[in-house]
Structures are given as C-alpha cells and as structure tokens.
C-alpha cells in the first residue's frame, strides 16, 4: 500500500472517530474521481476478500486506460452529455437517516401514485425512505422467506455478503458472462460496483418463490453501480424480479449496473425488470437518471433457458440490451420488452441473441411507445454462428407514436452463417389507429380510456410474461404514464 493511501485511510479513520458513529456514516463518501485509492477504499469499506479487490483493480486499470484513451459510447441513438467520470463520487455509505419523518411529509403526487398502484402502507414507507418501526411487518415477511429459501438450499444474499461467505461460487462465475473488458460501463462497474444481489439455486431445485430485491428491504440503497449474479445449477428454476412500479427518485444520475445470469443444463432463469426511475423535468429533461446497464445471460448447458422481461418507463436516458448467449444445444432465449418514453426521455434498448449451440431458439418481442418529444429506439442483434444448426429466431418490434414530435426507430442486425437457421424479423411503426379509436368511442369510451385500452392491448404480449402481481401493477403503471398523452 502506498504511503499516500495509508495516510488517506488513516485520515478517514480518525475522521470517523472524531465525529462519532452516526455522523460518520452519513458523511462518508469517497472523494470524487476514479482512482486506485477509491477502488481500494470501496473494497476496504465493504470488507472484501483479497481476490475481489484484485479483480476490481484489474478492472480499474482497464477502465482507466479506456477513459484516458478518450473512449465514449456514442453509437446509440441518444443525445446526452457523456458522464464526467472524474467528477463522480463512486461510493457513499448508505444513509442511516430517514428522508422523511412520517408519510405526511411525502409529496402528495407520490402518495397518490402509490395509492393507485395499490402498494401497502408499510411498503410505501420503505420506498420513500420514511423512518420505520423496528417491528415493521415486511421485515418479518422477509425473514419467513429467508427461512424457506434456506431450507431448499437457495442462496439469496447481497453481492458483498456472498463474496465473503461463498467466495468459491462467486469467484467461479463472476465476470464469466460479462468480462470486465466488455464495454466502458461494464468495466467501470467492475471496478467500483457498490452492491447488488447474488442468487444461487442448487441442482434440481425449483426456487419456491419469486425472488425480488423487494424482500431484501434492509439491503436497499445498493447504490448506483449494482452488480447482480444469478447461477442456476442443472435442473434448477428461478424467477427474479428487479425494481418496482413505484416511482423512484435516485440520488445519482449515472447508473451503470451489471447483471450476469448463468443457466446450466436443463436450468431456467426468468428475469423481470420494472424500471420507473426519475425521468427528469418533463419540460426540459434535466436531472433525470442515466440508466446504462449491461445485462447478459449465458445458457451454458444443454436445454437451458433464459428469459428477460422488462418494462421501462423511467429514466431520462436508457441504454440496455439484455442478451442471451445460447451456447448449450436446444437452449432457449427470450426477450420481452415494453419501453415507454415521454417528455424528454430517450431510450435505446433491445437485445442480442447469439446462437452457438444446435437447435437453439430465440424469441424477441419488443414494443416501443413514444410520446411528446421523446425518442425510442430498438436495437437488436441476432447472430447465428456456423455450427448453430437448425437455429430459430423470431423477432417482432412494434413502435407506437403518440404525437407528431416524438421519434421511433428500429435498428435490427441479423447475422447468419448457418444454412439451416431460420431467422425472421418483423417491425412496424404506426400511430394509434383512428379506426380503433372510433370503435372505442362508439362503445362509449372517452379518448383517454380508449387510448389506455389500445396501448395496453398493444403491450399485452409482453406484460403477460411478467409474474402475475407484477403484470397487474405494470398495467396500472402504463395507464398512469399515459395520462396527459392525449390531445
């Protein structure tokens, strides 16, 4: 350890001491900028094993070179100012202090949305960061779940905890699907990731419930560089839910998460996301979240299956391409997506299906809805390598435009090197049909009701892929988002 670093840590330590425990936690953030010291500091703060620190450092050197080399990701159909990597604070300890003392202080519009989404009171408190009682209901719920999972041998922990308690599993799998060299944001995440979830489902086990970050309420506030790893051993099944329908205000503008899924033989992983982060000021687009996520699944074993479902309604800028590498024979990859952009939101999202094994199948259903002055792009790649005999892909990307000033774009890439492969791609762009509206009016529905009905119908194919409770909420969420889009 260099002297400066030791001094820095010593300084930090004495600072802690000086201000006492609580103040310390609230104030504790790493200094701005991306330096080796910061990476070491994060690792140290999280009490990580040596190997993980070394891994972070490797990633750090790589990403530092790329940033210094002036790399930026500018190929997407997005217009935003590139993050200034040296002005970001890469670590801030979770806040102990509540945002609000009681629900009365929470802005009415948020409460109203909760009401309509049917979110229980205690959850509302947790979501808005209201101080909660020690005997909070959901905590005990979470505990019951934990017991049930342990019984089956399912490991569901925070990433940091898992790295300490199950180093062999984490070490074996982390970075194998998304290496730290993958892309600029994934590299950045690998160096400075804050926390995230780790799921391990042992051989032959069907996870007894839908896993959700929701149930790890005490682990909330995982920060801006989430890292999730899900491993399904042969014959295992797990369904994982990320995010929730409630509007989330994030403290940080840049979110660069990494999600890796690994499905061994006969295993299945279903990963659902609902993202409704702060989209920025509706008139100027200022202050919204940049959601730049790398998500990839590996169908490692034969007959394995990975399915991504996402509903993206939030964030100022969304750039994510949940992908599947279909390495095992007969493996299946699925991607279902609804991306709704309005105001000044921009989304460039899609998927990548890489067919490597024989008889692999993939399905892509993507629905983009654009309103106001938003831009919504689908960008997807279907790649069939030479040995992927009898590979099949079906892609459908539909865009709906609500208003004359928005944009909808599709950029599908199809690369096929196998003669027996069948790849089909379809895309349409249109507005809500006047005849559809007319029919609804005729049946007595008002303009807004009719629009909601039509848009929900348009997204039905995707929403039905969500776990049931989520699907209902998702539908409500879309309705709320659509309000004010008429006229």
């Amino acid at each position, binding site marked *: 350890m260099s002297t400066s670093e030791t001094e820095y840590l010593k300084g930090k330590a004495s600072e802690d001491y000086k201000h006492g425990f609580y103040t310390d936690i609230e104030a504790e953030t790493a200094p701005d900028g991306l330096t080796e010291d910061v990476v070491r500091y994060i690792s140290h703060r999280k009490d990580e094993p040596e190997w993980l620190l070394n891994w972070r450092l490797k990633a750090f050197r790589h990403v530092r070179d790329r940033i210094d080399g002036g790399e930026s990701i500018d190929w997407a159909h997005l217009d935003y100012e590139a993050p200034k990597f040296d002005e970001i604070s890469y670590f801030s300890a979770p806040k102990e202090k509540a945002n609000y003392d009681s629900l009365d202080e929470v802005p009415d519009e948020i409460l109203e949305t909760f009401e309509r989404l049917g979110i229980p009171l205690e959850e509302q408190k947790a979501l808005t960061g209201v101080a909660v009682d020690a005997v909070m209901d959901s905590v005990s719920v979470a505990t019951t779940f934990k017991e049930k999972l342990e019984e089956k041998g399912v490991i569901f922990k925070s990433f940091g905890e898992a790295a300490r308690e199950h180093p062999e599993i984490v070490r074996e799998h982390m970075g194998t699907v998304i290496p730290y060299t993958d892309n600029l944001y994934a590299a950045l995440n690998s160096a400075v990731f804050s926390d995230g979830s780790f799921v391990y489902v042992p051989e032959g086990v069907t996870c007894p419930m839908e896993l959700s970050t929701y149930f790890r309420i005490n682990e909330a506030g995982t920060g801006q560089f989430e890292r999730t790893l899900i491993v399904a051993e042969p014959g295992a099944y797990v369904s994982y839910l990320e995010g929730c329908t409630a509007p989330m205000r994030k403290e940080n503008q840049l979110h660069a998460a990494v999600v890796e899924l690994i499905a061994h033989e006969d295993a299945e992983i279903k990963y659902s996301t609902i993202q409704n982060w702060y989209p920025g000021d509706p008139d100027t687009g200022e202050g919204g979240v940049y959601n730049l996520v790398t998500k990839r699944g590996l169908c490692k074993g034969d007959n394995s299956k990975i399915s991504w479902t996402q509903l993206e309604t939030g964030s100022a800028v969304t750039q994510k391409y949940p992908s599947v590498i279909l390495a095992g024979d007969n493996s299946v990859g699925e991607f279902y997506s609804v991306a709704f952009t309005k105001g000044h939101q921009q989304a460039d999202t899609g998927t990548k299906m890489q067919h490597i094994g024989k008889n692999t199948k993939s399905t892509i259903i993507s629905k983009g809805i654009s309103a106001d002055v938003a831009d919504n792009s689908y960008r997807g790649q279907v790649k069939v390598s030479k040995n992927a005999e009898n590979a099949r892909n079906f892609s459908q990307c539909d865009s709906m435009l609500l208003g*004359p000033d928005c944009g909808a774009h599709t950029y599908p890439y199809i690369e096929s*090197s196998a003669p027996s492969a069948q790849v089909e791609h379809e895309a349409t762009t249109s507005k809500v049909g006047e005849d559809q509206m007319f029919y609804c009016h005729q049946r007595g529905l008002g303009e807004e009701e009719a629009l909601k009905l039509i848009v929900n119908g348009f997204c039905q194919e995707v929403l039905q892929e969500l776990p049931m409770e989520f699907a209902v909420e998702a539908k409500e969420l879309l309705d709320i988002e659509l309000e004010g889009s008429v006229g």
Partner: protein
Amino acid sequence: MSTALDTDVRPEDRFISAFEVNHGQALNGVNASIAQQREDAIERFSQLGIPDNSLEAWKYTDISKTIDRPYTLSLAAEGPSVAPSDIEPFTIDAMDAHRVVLVNGHVDESLSDIGDLPAGVVVSSLAQAGETHPDVVEAHYGQYADAEDEALTALNTAFVQDGAFVYVPSGTIVEKPIFFLHITAGDEPLFLQPRHLFVVEDGAIAKIVEAQHALTDAQTFTNTVSEAFVGERANLKHYLFQDEGTSASQVHTRAGTQKDNSVYSTNTITFSGEVVRNNATIEADGSFCESNLYGLCIGKDEMHVDNHTQMDHVQPDCNSNELYKHVLNDESTAVFNGKVLVTRGSQRIDAYQQNDTIVLTDDANIYTKPELEIYADDVVCSHGATTGQVDEEGVFYLRSRGLSERRAHILMLQAFTDEVVSEYKIDPLRDYIAEKIRQRFASYFA
C-alpha cells in the same frame, strides 16, 4: 494516358497525388463551377479518407482492403478498341432499345445504336452534354449525390471525366428503353470512375436499363456515381444488371430525387462480381411520390455483395416499397442495410421494407440490418427480414407432382427470385435475365 498508383503510400495519397498530376484531365475542363467542385471534392476526400469497417455504414464490407491494390487510374479519353462481336453476348437484341455502349466509362459511338429519339430528348455522353446542354448539367450535376459525407462520391467527383447522360424534357414520353451497356476492357487493372446523370423532367416518362459486363480477367475497380432527377408527375424506371465476372469490384452509388406525384423505381440485380457495394438513395422531395427499390443478389463462389439503401421521406403523403432478396451459394456473402427515414412533419407516409435470404451452403453468410428512423406519428412503416432455406414442403409438393428433386429445387429458387425479376417491366429484358438466373440455378444442382 494513365497513371499507375503507387502502392507504398497511403491509398488516399495515391489518389490525391494522381489528382495533382492530372489536373486538367476532366469533364468540361473550362467549366468553372465543375472545376471548383472537383477541387472541393478532393479536399473533402482527403479529410474523410477511404472508409473501412470501423464505420457503421461499412461494417461488413471493408472496402479499404479492396481499394488498396495496385490499380491503374485510367484517365484516357478513349477506351481500348472493342469489336462488335465482343459485346454480342450482352446486347439483348430482342430488346428494341436506344443503345449506348460505354467502354471503360466513355461512350463508344461505333458500337452504339441510339436510333431515333423523340424531339428534345438527349442520350449522350456526359462530357458532350456539358457542351451541348450546360444549363441542364449545371442545374442537376452534383446536386443529389453526397460528396460531402461519402468519401467515394467525393473521389468520383474529383476525378469526373465522363459517363452517361439522359435528358427527357417536360411532357415527353420515351417509349423504347434507353439501354446503357457498360463494358470494362483492356489488360490493365483499371480503377474506373464513371459518372452518370439522368434528368427526367415534369410529366416525362422513361425507362433506363444499365448492364455492366467485363471483357477482361484483370482485377478492376469501378467507382460509379449516378444521379437521377424525376420531375413532377414524371415516371422513371431504372434497371441495373451487374455481371462483371469474378475479378471486378465496384462501388455503385445512385442518388435519386423526385418531385410531387412522381414515380421512381430502381431495380438492381447482382449476378457476379468480386466485391460489390451498391448505395441506393432516394429522396422523395415532393408529396404523393411513389418510390420503389428492388434488388436481387445471386451469390456464388466468393462473391461479396453489399446493398445499402436509404429511403428519405422528407415530404408528407408518399409511399415507398423496398424488396431485396438474396440466394447465396458457395462462400458468398450478402449484406443488406436498408434505412427508411421519415422526417418530422412528413405525415401520412406508407413505407414498406422487406429483405429475404435463402442460404444454400454452410459457408455462405448473410448480414442484414433493416432500419427505420421515424419522426412523424401518422405513418405506417414496417420492415421484415427472413433468412432460411428452400421450403421443403414446397419441394415435396412439386415432387409429388412428378418433378425431380433437382427440378423442384430449381423451380423453388426461381419462384423466390421471380418477385424481383418480375418487376422488370420490359418483357425481353425480363426473359433474358430470368433465363440467366435459371441457368445459374441449374448449374448448382448439376
């Protein structure tokens, strides 16, 4: 006169120094505006550089490798002498047409047979048109092709010498097709840069057929730029048949612009070539336009064909259709990148795009990327892409009707390509091409 390109230096510099050496050798050397365009273009080319596959538009075709060969930059006013018997296989005699033969990009009058044209119609070389119709040339030349952002269009503009020229004045109908037969001849590894201009004014109707063939096995590269203007209520059908053999590479850039109520159709069939890149751009700069883009690639051996299309809807109430098909055999590669752009305010657009590919062998590759970029809401736009094999059910049906396996396969492939070939609305031409394609398919199953 010709200049051998020095291969030791950066490929761009070879062209730039050749430009300096041959300053005066250009179309209409006295025309100040064209001379200035040439100067600007070489400057722009030097800034842009030859595209390589780090550029999204050239991702699957690294043209810089193909260009980086010891070609000879031909600047001769006259091509080598070609006998009528040499071009006989390509003349499609059954087609009654106004025929112009160009050898290495220059009109060869002895081989041409223009015949009688309606009053006011001009079919000639571009160089000649520069003298006889300077107003038409100046009004349209360099207006539609993008020499600002496309390095190879800039390169062509810098070296412009000659090419084909058609002018159909207002309200004139040219009944017979105008047929340009482009021949590459000579033993040298030529780098050719023909430049064509087709102007069809308001209410006029014309059919232009272009066929490209080679009489040489030398490795050649042709960098063509062709511009078309279709006036109000005009109708231009523009067919291109590419069959230059296995040693000829080319970048063929076509830029067309059309005005209100006009119809512009292009149809490109690539039958042979080494590396072939076609850039077809249509700008529907008027309301109630109809634009059609068709293409077919019959890939064999190591052919690499890249069709890059751009359909720009910048005015409301238009429709466009795009259909490209590939049949890929051996180690051939096809690339399709089609883009439909609907700009803000261009409402009530119907735009369709389809790309279908049949892959016959393990070593053939297809890269397809149909794109939509839409900024208006009252539109119906769609695209589709499929890749796969010959439909075995169809083959089974034909076999059950008594056809041999071979015949059934040939027939299925013919049926697949017919959707494009049948868009050739000149019967003798369509028959000629359909027969060539049938023979090609027959040879696959010999």
